[in-house]
């Protein structure tokens, strides 16, 4: 591989107080690739995303985006860094004081070249691309079901056509049918905007659907990664235990929250 990876992490460590979450995290994602990180609860998946976004500061190691160092940025550079990303949060994290269309248009409406009317039109187009009608735009997030909120959150994440999109447990808390709808939408909308994506999940059906490559996180390190077709023959007892959801095996479940 000669091209620079879109995102490259090497030797990243992060601890809170005396509790170490990431201990030497290495990973690289190529442009346009969809990587899914699997791992049990409390294995540091969410922390990884927040470190790359610059919401948390790492202790050691390096995070490069487009070959440029992205750890320990100052305010101005951090704003520029964060503007490359879109993120779908686990609980959707929609702004409940704003109607749906203002949520979706939140980022683009701040551009000086965009009038409120154009922004609203764009928001309604984006809502249509995730299968929602224009009248949903005037409702408030609290009036929608969980699955609908997820769709709105997805629309908000892709509305500004970011280069990189993060999905934090996109199917958690949804019924299997709605989960599959969301997976389909993720695959379709990502292809449309041509983004590089990184998802974290413990839902194997979702991982198989949206991933090009799968990496498994255990105790703050990547213990296995490979193409998604290879996961059933990984030869790694940790991966086997996880994908078959067995209580018995080498993985010891963490009781305390990360």
């Amino acid at each position, binding site marked *: 591989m000669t091209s620079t990876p879109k995102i490259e992490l090497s030797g990243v460590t992060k601890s809170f107080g005396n509790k170490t979450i990431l201990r030497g995290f290495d990973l690289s994602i190529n442009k346009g690739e969809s990587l899914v990180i699997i791992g049990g609860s409390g294995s540091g998946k969410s922390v990884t995303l927040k470190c790359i976004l610059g919401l948390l500061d790492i202790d050691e190691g390096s995070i490069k985006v487009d070959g440029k160092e992205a750890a320990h940025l100052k305010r101005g550079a951090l704003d520029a860094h*964060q503007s490359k990303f879109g*993120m779908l949060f686990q609980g959707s994290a929609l702004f409940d004081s704003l109607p749906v269309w203002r949520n979706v248009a939140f*980022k683009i409406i*701040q551009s000086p070249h965009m009038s409120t009317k154009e922004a609203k039109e764009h928001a309604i187009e984006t809502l249509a691309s995730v299968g929602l009608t224009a009248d949903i735009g005037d409702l408030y997030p609290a009036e929608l079901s969980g699955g609908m909120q997820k769709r709105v959150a997805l629309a908000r*994440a892709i509305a500004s056509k970011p280069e990189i999109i993060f999905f934090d447990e996109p199917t958690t808390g949804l019924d299997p049918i709605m989960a599959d709808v969301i997976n389909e939408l993720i695959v379709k909308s990502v292809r449309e905007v041509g983004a590089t994506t990184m998802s974290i999940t413990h839902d194997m059906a979702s991982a198989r659907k949206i991933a090009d490559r799968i990496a498994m996180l255990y105790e703050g390190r990547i213990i296995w990664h490979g193409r998604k077709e290879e996961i059933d023959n990984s030869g790694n007892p940790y991966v086997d235990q996880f994908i078959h959801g067995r209580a018995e095996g080498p993985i010891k479940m963490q009781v305390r929250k990360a």
Partner: protein
Amino acid sequence: MNPLAIIGRALLDFLAIVGRLTRFLTRSVKMCFLPPFYPRQILRQFIDIGYFSLPVVGLTTLFTGMVLALQSHTGFSRFDAESAIPTVVVLSITRELGPVMAGLMVAGRIGASIAAELGTMRVTEQIDALSTLSTNPFKYLVAPRLIAGTLMLPLLVLVGDIIGVFGGFLVCVYDLQFNAANYISQTWEYLEISDVTSGLWKAAVFGFIIALMGAYQGFNSRGGAQGVGTATTNAVVSASILILVTNYLLTGLFFAGR
């Protein structure tokens, strides 16, 4: 445990809190003066903090003025000094009771609501979502509240002063058979501009403290519903105590300047 260690630990914890608060304060104040500004957010806070607090502040100062007239009548009638009552009422209200009572009531009303709103936004990841949508949470959430708190509380107190003096007037004229015209002229006689303005300066400082403590506690809340509850309590308690302490310091300052 070693008693020295307990003292040392408490001192270190206290210093850590002061440090965090100072960092939060400088960052937020800087954001009040740097573009982009969010006029919609600022206007919303003006209405929330200013307009909707009027009834609470009005009722509080009205009854404070009334009870002040009754109590000073009890005292002053013992040595035939009833004519001093209008002066006592207007000076106490404008210099002390107006700003302090309004400050404490608004701390309960607004400090709590800021902490609860921002705390909920923190635990539902809405504050993280702002960062991924190219919006600085300090600018979008904290700065409008600080601006509105600092500018609105003096206005509220000015209205409260007038209502409080009117409360004293009501009691004296309708209950204690004072002459209305005399009461009003005596109210003006010894009142100086600086009596009112010193109270308004206090109010501006109190408004800033209320918004700052609400935002700080909300921003740093952790761990779901209980965390938000704790943040709300802390916001009201710390704002109230800081109001009482700074009131003493400011009063000292204003007296020293004369």
